């Protein structure tokens, strides 16, 4: 029973993380904040996947979600790195660290 409640607890936190990430992405104007917000969303999803790995039938974990998490992280890393370098290029070109028409 306690693994089930643990699982739900993890899922709820992951959803909370996802929500916060979404909010931060669209609320803040600064690009780095947006990229970080995206990272938070993806960590939320990884947490959700890890939660599903917690199988009720026996003790060991289901390896598939873990593999997915690893792959997810690698993809996230490459995307974030690329985004950050683009922000640097933008800052170098125009000196602005936020999208031109963002009001805040």
């Amino acid at each position: 029973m306690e693994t089930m409640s643990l699982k739900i607890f993890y899922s709820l936190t992951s959803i909370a993380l996802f929500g916060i990430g979404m909010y931060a992405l669209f609320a803040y104007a600064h690009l780095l904040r947006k990229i970080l917000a995206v990272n938070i969303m993806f960590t939320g999803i990884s947490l959700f996947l890890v939660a599903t790995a917690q199988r009720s039938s026996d003790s060991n974990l289901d390896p598939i979600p873990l593999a997915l998490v690893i792959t997810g992280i690698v993809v996230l890393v490459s995307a974030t790195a690329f985004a950050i370098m683009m922000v640097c290029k933008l800052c170098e070109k125009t000196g602005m660290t936020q999208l031109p028409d963002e009001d805040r």
Partner: protein
Amino acid sequence: MDETTVLIVWVILLPFVGAMVAFILGPRKAPIVTIITSYCIISVVAALTWQVWKYGPQRHDVGGWVAPLGIALYADGLTVLMLIMSIVVGTLVSVYALGYFTDSSISSETGKANHRSKSSFFWVLWLFLWAALNALFLSQDIFNIYITLELLTLAAVALITLEGESEAITAAIRYLLTSLVGAALFLFGVAILYANFGTLELEGLGELVQTGSLSVVAIALITMGLLLKTALFPMHFWLPPAHSNALTPVSSLLSALVIKGSFYVLLRLWFQVFPLEVTMVAGHLIGCLAAAAILWGSLAAMCQKRLKILVAYSTVAQVGYLFLLFPLAAKETHGLGAWNGAIYQTISHACAKAAMFMVVGNIIRAIGHDRIKDMKGVCQQLPVSMFAFALAGLTIMGMPPSGGFAAKWMLITTSIQSGQWWWAVILLAGGLLAAGYIFSVLKYAFIKTEIVNVPLRPVPRCMEWAPLILSLLALLIGFTPMPLDLLRIGNPFPDAVTMEVVK
């Protein structure tokens, strides 16, 4: 079943290998490598088409592991058509890019260096994009689709940044962020599906998924993610700046192929995996968004000052046509007509839109800017390009001789057959609005100018003929029933009533 299902694998591996070789050999030899790779891919896909045509859908389990554990690659009529589309548009864009990047006319040294650096990475990234597309069309595993989508988006964003200007970078960032949000939503949906049903394989999911509240949430998230990536109306904000600020060959690739990738995924999931009751209601919501897209895109296109943004907004409008498939195919019986119509529209729009962007590229190459108002003298000097633009315009408007018309005809027939006549009205209104902005450009081809010939920078021949061939292809699709028979293989409407002749 034919003995070797290895053709599918080569379709994916070849572009990757090509990319690697192109990167290692450096920018000078990259174009040649790309041409060679494209030849190989053409032959492989041709063989695959013949195989699918004779023996039906092909299936390949990667790594030898059976379905739920391993990843399966699957090719049926629709996939093959999509592959052919990406080949046709891809090779012709590559030919165009050959001319585009060997620009001898730039005199200044820095300009030359800048230009060469731009072109150096184009070929590698383009091959990666091609690989991502092929992998996407062929994959049958939902997580694998997620990765291919990511590969596709990253390649696309990288191609946009090639242009190097600040607007391009801004557009790229905006595009990357939106697609990351889309990817996040998609992944979350996948995670929920996995949590509920345990398998990632589309076939398996198809049977297991019923209308529980959890699967509903997953479907909503996945659909939202994909709509974001395909730039349907309210989520279209990233497309115009991205497609108009990129280099011309890049923007034709983006408009023609990248958009279609995520649409293809949604098509696959919608008709194979998601249960019918759910898709019925959601279909009509997407239908409304599509209608809004058609009207808003055309209206915005009419108000644009620059030609490239106009063509980009026309993409927003044309995407609307694609999504009309969902409400129309909601009813099981009439699905096939709408399905054929949407696929015809996809293919003919890909050819036409790529041709249009190339023509715009020619104009920019000739006079340096693409403001519609002072495009007077150019059109008389570039007859072949203007003719290509006109033919492509036919497909966009859905005028009779073109593939666009065949698509419109099928969509309208289905909408009237299934009693939802209002979609037919939207389609026709879209056609008329499209005529509005196409002819506002075409009239400059006929305008009388005082100065007989405006001083133009020479436009190489292959840059003029590539769009013409593409727009002729878009026209040809309207005449051959071949795509239809291909589409019948493995379509999701097995018992659909087709329009037999009622005698």
